């Protein structure tokens, strides 16, 4: 059956997912259970005071995303920290929500986790595209930082 053949051909590209998702899940497990994510998030957010707190939260979320690429997993750990520090510093919590969101998406451009299906479909290697996505990331970081400071 040609559908089965199509799946067989596409399934070859799933090797990266099969091999690497458990590893990232393990990293997430360690980060959560040992309090490493909280440590990252709080110490990086502590550098910021008042007006710059959304900015430092944005960058700390970008760092945490390298280790915890899953947006839902990252929010579960970092979200409460960001919200509590927003209340403590008198910052609009809505802005902090978006600061975490922007940080989470930014370093996807360095982290090949989400690119695995794309790499399989386009047949390129991570190292073929990461230079270009890194340029996009730097420009995007500047733009997002500008937005966080302006509003």
């Amino acid at each position: 059956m040609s559908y089965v053949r199509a799946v067989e051909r596409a399934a070859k590209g799933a090797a990266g997912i099969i091999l690497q998702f458990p590893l990232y899940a393990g990293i997430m497990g360690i980060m959560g259970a040992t309090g490493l994510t909280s440590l990252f998030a709080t110490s990086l957010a502590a550098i910021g005071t008042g007006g710059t707190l959304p900015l430092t939260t944005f960058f700390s979320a970008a760092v945490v995303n390298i280790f915890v690429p899953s947006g839902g997993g990252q929010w579960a750990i970092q979200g409460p920290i960001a919200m509590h520090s927003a209340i403590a510093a008198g910052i609009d919590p809505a802005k902090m929500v978006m600061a975490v969101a922007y940080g989470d998406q930014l370093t996807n451009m360095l982290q090949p986790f989400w690119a695995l299906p794309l790499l399989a479909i386009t047949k390129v290697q991570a190292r073929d595209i990461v230079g270009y996505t890194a340029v996009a990331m730097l420009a995007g970081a500047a733009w997002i930082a500008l937005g966080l400071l302006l509003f």
Partner: protein
Amino acid sequence: MISRLGLLISRAFRSVMPDPFVLAVVLTFATIALALLLTPTPFPKVIDAWSSDLGIWSLLKFAMQMSLILVTGYALATSPPVARLTRRLAQLPTTGANAAALVAVLATTTGVLNWGLGLIVGAVAAREVGAAMHRKGISVHYPLLAAAGYLGLMVWHGGFSGTAPLKVTRAADIAEIFGATPPISAIPLDRTLFSPMNLFITGGLLILLPLIMAALAPRDAAAIQRAESFGISDNDGVVASAEPTGEAMIANRSSRVFWRIRHGSRGLWFCSSRSGRGATTSPATAPPASGSSPRTPSISPCLASACFYTALR
């Protein structure tokens, strides 16, 4: 100048970027080391955390969903309606620069709608535009197209499937963060996704990123790596005529099966303003569908896959 800078940066990364698997292994050991150095956790506890159900096995369901994204995305890409659409779209670009910009526009706009959709549309668009440019005899730097196809993942969290802004719209989730008497109420989307700040940031990214991709297109012919050198050519491209009907027809049919699976519980994902919620919760707890029925057979595979992706994460 930007294009030369892009080539330089790309070459630098090419020489240092490890294989993604190596990166995952290195990150694992780095995390273990950091946990031992920076937290008072003893080594056996760290290993317990790694091997527990909250560790390596916690993404089993999600890993299968990602595999299905890949497999059904491939099937979607080979279906006739998508092939026709991409063939028509792929006719548009006349240079390497606007080919990259087109792929970036497709990946980011769909990425704002839904991250999974953006990922698969970006990948398919990169591949198709690469094959179409090859057909037209225009040299295009194919790795840049693939990079442009990945940009949806840089705008998704400011879009309709964004986990964080969707999570805080529910009082229950706010209470989970702050306890029984939260100092704030649920945060509606008009203060997050539809705030002037996000319209500025995400709207700006939608314009900025395609322009950057266009500027990065290498002008030096010697630097251009065409799609065919990655095994993407007319015969292999997903719109190729080599195996025109069989696989494509079946793919179409399989997408309809997915349509039926999703249809009962979800309906048209983009008709529901709350549809992105599915991205943050399990499909079982997703909100009821706003409801609609498949329209024409030609668009149903796209809708089916869209519905399928919405249920993920």
